[in-house]
């Protein structure tokens, strides 16, 4: 469900259905819940920036309580969401499931599941090697930055962050002293 927030503007659907690594893509981007998590991250960051602006600056600094400051917060919030989302989606490769995060961790899980499907006999020999090579190729494609999907998702997420910051602003502004009419 959450993936639909991103699939409309990215090649996520294609990646999950026709790509050579479709199993890896599908399990991470469609099944793992990463889409919902990055949306939560977006909301959390937007909320923090909103609260800092309205409860901090908006109550304690007349000088900084201006539309331009709000715009700066909006932009910084959005940029922050972009980088945090991008980092969260991609994660880090620790060489094993327990040491990895993000899509790397997911790729190791998928790799394990492909080699040892639950309720079925494990694949061995060349078949297993082939799966391991494919998984490594999948991971390498991100390390070489040849797949833009995480960046695209982070970008879309930062745009959602803009909207969330705006919505949160409408709710929070009434509690501020100097910024009751910011953004309007």
């Amino acid at each position, binding site marked *: 469900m959450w993936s639909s927030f991103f699939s409309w503007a990215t090649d996520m659907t294609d990646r999950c259905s026709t790509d050579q690594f479709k199993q890896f893509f599908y399990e991470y981007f469609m099944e793992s819940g990463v889409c919902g998590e990055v949306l939560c991250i977006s909301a959390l960051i937007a909320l923090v920036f909103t609260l800092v602006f309205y409860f901090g600056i908006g109550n304690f600094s*007349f*000088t900084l*309580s*201006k*539309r331009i400051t709000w715009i700066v917060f909006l932009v910084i919030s959005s940029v922050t969401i972009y980088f945090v989302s991008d980092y969260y989606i991609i994660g880090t490769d620790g060489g094993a499931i327990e040491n990895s995060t993000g899509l790397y961790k997911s790729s190791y899980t998928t790799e394990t599941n492909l080699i040892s499907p639950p309720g079925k006999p494990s694949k061995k020999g060349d078949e297993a090697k082939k799966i391991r090579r494919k998984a490594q190729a999948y991971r390498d494609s991100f390390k070489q930055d040849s797949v833009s999907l995480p960046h695209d998702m982070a970008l879309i997420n930062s745009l959602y962050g803009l909207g969330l910051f705006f919505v949160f602003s409408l709710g929070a502004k009434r509690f*501020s*002293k*100097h*910024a*009751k*009419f*910011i953004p*309007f």
Partner: protein
Amino acid sequence: MAKKLFIFAIGGTGARVLRSFTMVAAAGLEKFESDTSVIPIIIDHDRQCGDKDRATYALTQYYTIHNSMYSNTNERNGFFMTNFTPLSHLGVKGGNHAVKKDSWCLDFGPDGNVKYSKYLGLDSMESIEALKPTEGLLKALYDTSDSNEPTAELELNLNVGFKGKPNIGTVVFHDIKGTKEFDWFLGQCGPDDKVFVIGSLFGGTGASGIPEIVKAIRKSGKPAADAEIGAALMLPYFDLQPNDKAGDGLNTGAIDYATFNAKTKAALESYGQGGVDAMNRVIDSIYYIGDEEKHTALDYNEGSSGQKNDAHVAEFVAATAIVDFFTQERVTGSAYEFGIGDTTDKLRIGQFDNLSKQLIFKPLNSFVIAMRYYNDVVREKRVSVNHATTFYQHFDLTNNLNKGVYSQVDDFLGVASTNDWNFFSWIDEMARQVHAFAPYTITGDLYKVIADKPQKDRTIMGVGKKAATNDTSLNSRMNTITGTAVDNSARSFFYALRQLGTQVNNNLR
């Protein structure tokens, strides 16, 4: 507490005191709430007197502001809350149109270029044998010089008043009893109301008008006769420059400031004569106000539009006498002389007594702080303000400034400086006198807005405690106050400004 205060402002000095009182009342005085009617009645035979014009402009603008802000409401804590009412508006709804509508002035006596001899009917006496002795007596009593002579009396043209001749003014003022305006006043003034009379003793109009008006009230046989009467008797507080306008058809040199003290003494002496009917006995409270030191020598003008004297601290003190008189319980036979210990060049608030500080300066300081902030910051005459900030948006100042009450207040304050009677001019005029009264600064930043209490920021590199009168501190406080505003009307805006001024004034050390 009486609900009506009638103020008879007589002559140019009376008008100037009334202007000062209007400015002080704008600050919103305690016990002068909007259910109290103040009825100013300016009496000056000089129909074009510049001082009278300035007082009436100030009153009219005040009246407009008050009605815009407080129509049909009872305000007890606002700027401009005192209800100044023209005499014609008293009594019946819609006013009495037999009395000059909406006028602050009580015009009486001869209109146009009428000489005193004609006013007395000297022409007709010549043709009536039986009146010849009277004519002769009058010619013996009065100077018969030509109207261009400084000593002219019978030939004096009354169109610009009495030119410092109370012996003529007394005769003319005797006729005030028959005017419909005075009758209307007597009908509206009850025994619980108060009447205050202001005039100078060293000129012509005030010295002659005060006793005649007081007598006319006391001997009216109406309820008004029992009203409490107070008077501010203005003793000399300015000099005149030599007459450099001789030959202009108006200034004959009839007024000699060297005679001011002698005329004052004569007036004071006459007020003490007459036994139980003596002026000093029929007036409940008399305030003697003058200035013995550092007189400003004003431009010589015998009247008309040229008589437009700068405001003086003595007039301010007389305005405070009105407040004192109205707020005190009736004490018959009281005489007050205004005294001040220190006579340094510039008088400050600190030299006034605690009662004046409480009754006058507390609201006035708040008003000045608020209006300086309004002028400098809100109206952006000195610094610009963020239009997105809370108070600016809440009161929709982008659209409302320059309109309605805001525009009227601008005019009253002199934000655009298009008039010479405004509030800021009034403060500036008092500060420019030789014996200056400079309690406030009206230019520059607001750190020294109250001259006695200069403020400064306690900050290092912009960090630390800003002064209460720092623009940013004021803006911040205004936003806080706006949070409690009941609505976004102009009335609420000026109420918020009053709160701002009061809070800041209370915080000044």
